[in-house]
């Protein structure tokens, strides 16, 4: 039975980390960041020694374990139109999620559960334990601007903050509390000194952004609305390959499409849903061959518009968590930060020269 007295926080000595992970794996299937080539990906782990603790960002966000990129919604019979689904959510623990991705999941929660809740998402979410870990930013990160540099709210269960020799473990939910109780011999109580170290680690992360280019997101919704006709969109979109990488790697994008796949007999039909992207022309294609977003500029702008105007309107949060994936993975090296800075006109270039410098800057 659950002791309903959530502790505020505990301390996990670093020497106990691997026992902690081993303990988690015994409780339910464990998903964690593992190395693949030069990059890191979230993957189910069989051997905890595969887990990478220090990483900057994974190629895909942990979203893929909540909403698979390709899923069969149901199958139906063409004889009597009866529906069936063998979907069953399983218990899973996702370990090693950075703060931005936890915020990303919180946005998905709002999208999927606020109005017309998706019962399948709810079931998966109930059976998933989210354990975060602190991180340091690289040049693509701008979570300090989006207000997602530190875990917030209560959509996660545990959060480990590196405070030197130990991890400061914040407890976010009864599920997290339960895990601590289950593995209590690995933790010790917090002391004043730990709290000081915890504060210091917060300051350290903030300071790490000091020399980085950060976008000013103050009143960003209005900015995007007012700059709807700005030439910046055309200039940036010119380089856009419409490859959809930015949305596919985004922790908050959720658009999908679905098709019906019949079997040879035509007796049963599978309704298959798969992720799609607003950057693809066919996304806005409707009957009669009309494209609602006919140009690359329209599609390019649409992503920013949705992130910074659409999401706040829908769920009262920005749709961007500053994880930097869209910029880091873009084959054309289009940077979200750069675009936002240019839109605001704070790139400190003479207006006429801005375009030239962008194209010249690319060949360097």
């Amino acid at each position: 039975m659950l002791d309903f007295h959530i502790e505020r926080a505990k301390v996990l000595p670093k020497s106990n980390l691997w026992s902690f992970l081993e303990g988690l794996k015994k409780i339910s299937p464990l998903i964690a960041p593992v190395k693949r080539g030069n990059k890191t990906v979230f993957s189910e782990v069989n051997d905890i020694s595969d887990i990478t603790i220090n990483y900057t960002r994974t190629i895909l966000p942990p979203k893929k374990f909540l909403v698979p990129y390709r899923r069969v919604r149901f199958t139906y019979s063409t004889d009597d139109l009866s529906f069936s689904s063998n979907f069953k959510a399983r218990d899973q623990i996702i370990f090693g999620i950075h703060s931005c991705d936890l915020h990303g999941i919180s946005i998905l929660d709002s999208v999927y559960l606020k109005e017309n809740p998706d019962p399948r998402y709810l079931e998966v979410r109930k059976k998933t334990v989210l354990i975060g870990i602190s991180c340091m930013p690289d040049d693509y990160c701008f979570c300090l601007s989006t207000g997602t540099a530190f875990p917030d709210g209560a959509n996660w269960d545990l959060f480990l903050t590196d405070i030197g020799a130990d991890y400061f473990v914040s407890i976010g939910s009864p599920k997290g509390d339960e895990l601590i109780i289950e593995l209590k011999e690995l933790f010790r109580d917090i002391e004043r000194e730990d709290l000081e170290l915890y504060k210091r680690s917060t300051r350290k992360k903030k300071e790490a952004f000091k020399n980085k280019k950060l976008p000013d997101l103050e009143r960003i919704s209005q900015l995007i609305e007012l700059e709807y006709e700005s030439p910046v969109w055309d200039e940036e979109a010119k380089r856009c390959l419409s490859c959809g990488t930015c949305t596919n790697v985004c922790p908050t994008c959720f658009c999908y499409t679905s098709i019906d796949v019949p079997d040879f007999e035509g007796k049963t039909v599978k309704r298959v849903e798969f992720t799609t992207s607003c950057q693809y022309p066919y996304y806005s294609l409707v009957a009669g061959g009309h494209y609602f977003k006919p140009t690359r500029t329209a599609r390019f702008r649409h992503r920013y518009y949705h992130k910074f105007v659409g999401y706040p309107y829908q769920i009262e949060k920005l749709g961007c968590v500053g994880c930097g994936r869209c910029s880091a993975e873009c084959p054309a090296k289009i940077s979200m930060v750069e675009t936002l800075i240019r839109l605001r006109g704070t790139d400190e270039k003479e207006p006429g020269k801005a375009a030239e410098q962008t194209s010249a800057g690319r060949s360097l």
Partner: protein
Amino acid sequence: MVRIGIMGLTGCSGCQCEILNCEDAIGKLIGKVEFAYFPLAQDVNDFSEFDILFVEGSVSTNLDREKLIEGRKRAKLLVAVGTCACYGGVQSQRNDEASLDEMLKAVYGDTKLDLEVFKPMPLSDVVDVDYELPGCPLDKRQFVYTVASLLNGVEPFFPKIPVCHECKLSETDCLLLKGIPCQGPVSFSGCGAPCTASGVGCQGCRGNCDFPNFDEILSIYQEIGLSFDDSVRFLKVFRGKTISGLKVGSSNEKGA
């Protein structure tokens, strides 16, 4: 019973072999459909009429053309399979660079050919094509899906989205960012991006995605060290007719 025909024109027969490799699907199909014509796989063939006729290969001789026109007359649905049938194939990559006489001279010298030969062209240059399944070879899953859909009167759905979609969702590290020439961003997906997963840049064998941004991809190739001419040649290998006369510097936006 539904009558299916599978025939080949100028090509390597790789796509027909790939169809033969769909053992599970063929096992399920036999008994429901009749493979009336499939010379690569069976001895007894009947070229009378078809519900669905799959045609592999490009049209490059008068024999190809006659057979294709004949096939079209006898088929309710005609499906082009493979890049040769859809776009002309690798054999058509230099169609816009030399005349037919120059090509014949280079390959056959002064030998007189006893058939009429022309520059390799896609099926759609000669007859109406109902569906196109590009790829070198075509993708087995797409073939099975197309057959299942057509047998049940459902339109098969192939959004022309880029290979990057499947590549990124399989968490493959971007090859272009590593400096490896890759045609993923301008190529039609559906293959599952096996090449990039094994570290080989996409060769664009499935042709163009919707509104490919050739200007940007060419500038990326040059940034990673390819000459302009090599960049264009690289793009032309599989695209056949769909890229001949590529105009660089013009916007590829079509608007709608």
